[in-house]
């Protein structure tokens, strides 16, 4: 009788001591901080859960959004928090006319934005890991507004020294004439010349900063036909503005 009592007490003690040293179930919330959110639409995903991160505040002012995934993780569960991929089967037509279907993967970023893992200290922590590795799970992402190129065709350029500016922001772009085998300028068209990268919903105005020697160039294109415009929805959909023409003619002698 006495012996069994002792056994019971021992079992009770063991249970109590186990509970006190963490035998109870610990869970880990997945905390998320996203910097630079200017628009709605970001969805982060991990462990079969989705978390929508939307813009708060007025206009498109960039804000920092904090959120927590709905379900917590158990100790030892792995996680990998990524922008939710969307796979779209797309039909592509090859040069010979045959069609095939390829899967195109896009991500649920905010509208007009792209988000990446934070790259700067102290928030440049991995977005994957195992629950319990660190005392808490903290995920950081940084979103930036997309930028699209201004693409030009340069005609008749023979002189050197042509530079183009887009206001005061980016460095001016220098354009050199095409040369033949003897290093003489041919005046041949320069096509698909990427000039500047312009952020969505900002304006651009391309001007000629310096004229090439012995020539005068004029610029046309852009949304207003004279080199200026806004990187709006239509321009974004087209992947940039590519109707710039810089036409150069020799100065009268």
């Amino acid at each position, binding site marked *: 009788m006495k012996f069994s009592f002792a056994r019971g007490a021992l079992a009770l003690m063991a249970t109590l001591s186990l509970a006190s040293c963490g035998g109870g179930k610990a869970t880990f919330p997945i905390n998320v901080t996203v910097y630079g959110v200017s628009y709605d639409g970001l969805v982060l995903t991990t462990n079969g859960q989705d978390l929508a991160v939307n813009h708060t505040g007025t206009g498109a002012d960039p804000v920092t959004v904090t959120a927590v995934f709905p379900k917590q993780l158990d100790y030892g569960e792995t996680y990998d928090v990524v922008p939710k991929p969307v796979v779209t089967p797309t039909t592509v037509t090859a040069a010979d006319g045959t069609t095939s279907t390829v899967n195109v993967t896009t991500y649920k970023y905010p509208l007009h934005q792209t988000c990446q893992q934070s790259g700067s200290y102290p928030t440049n922590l991995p977005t994957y890991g195992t629950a319990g590795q660190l005392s808490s799970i903290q995920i950081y992402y940084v979103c930036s507004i997309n930028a699209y190129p201004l693409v030009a065709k340069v005609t008749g350029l023979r002189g050197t020294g042509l530079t183009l500016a887009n*206001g005061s922001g980016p460095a001016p772009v220098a354009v050199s004439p095409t040369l033949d085998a003897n290093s003489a300028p041919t005046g041949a068209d320069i096509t698909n010349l990427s000039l500047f990268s312009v952020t969505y919903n900002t*304006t651009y*105005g391309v*001007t000629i900063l310096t004229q090439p020697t012995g020539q005068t160039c004029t610029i046309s294109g852009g949304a207003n036909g*004279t080199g200026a415009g*806004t990187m709006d929805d239509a321009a974004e959909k087209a992947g940039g503005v590519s109707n710039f023409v810089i036409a150069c003619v020799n100065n009268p002698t």
Partner: protein
Amino acid sequence: MKSSILRAGVALACALGLAACGGGDGDLLLQGTIYSGVTKTGLVLTNNGGDDLAIPAGATSFQFSRAVSTDDEFNIEVKSYPSNVKTCTINNGKARANYYTIAQVTMSCEIKTHPFKIQIQGLTTNGLVVVNGTDRRDVLPNTPVLEMSPVYEDGPYGVTILTQPTGQTCSVANGTGTMGSTDTDNNKVVVTCA
């Protein structure tokens, strides 16, 4: 006789000892990273007020020619600025030298900016929008001077008309150029409307 040998010995020991603990050149090359703002020649750095080091335009790093010894104190300061620089900020520029501290120096320079004003002539209607790249301004009728965002010294500007005003046509004279070194000699961009 014996004491003079001893004295010479002590002097020698002292000399060696001094040399060993930083009296002379060491083996640590003091260096740094330049993040931004050095677009012209003219920047000169000093260490402890000497060892002048001229930094060429566009440099992204620097290294003093004279090596320092472990535990030597170094103090990097700017002796002279390029003409277009307002100020330079040096981080971790003052410390005692060791393998870690000699490679932790960073510097960024801030380039001067100047006000950028455009003269507007003859504008009597609404709707004129003027841009300098991403700097977009709606211009009201009868505005004599339009103040744009400041422009960096030696930096480009390119003013164009994004939208013409109702019933008028405006043109830009001297719209593109490079910002000079004073606050006033660049205000020659004129938008004339008729």
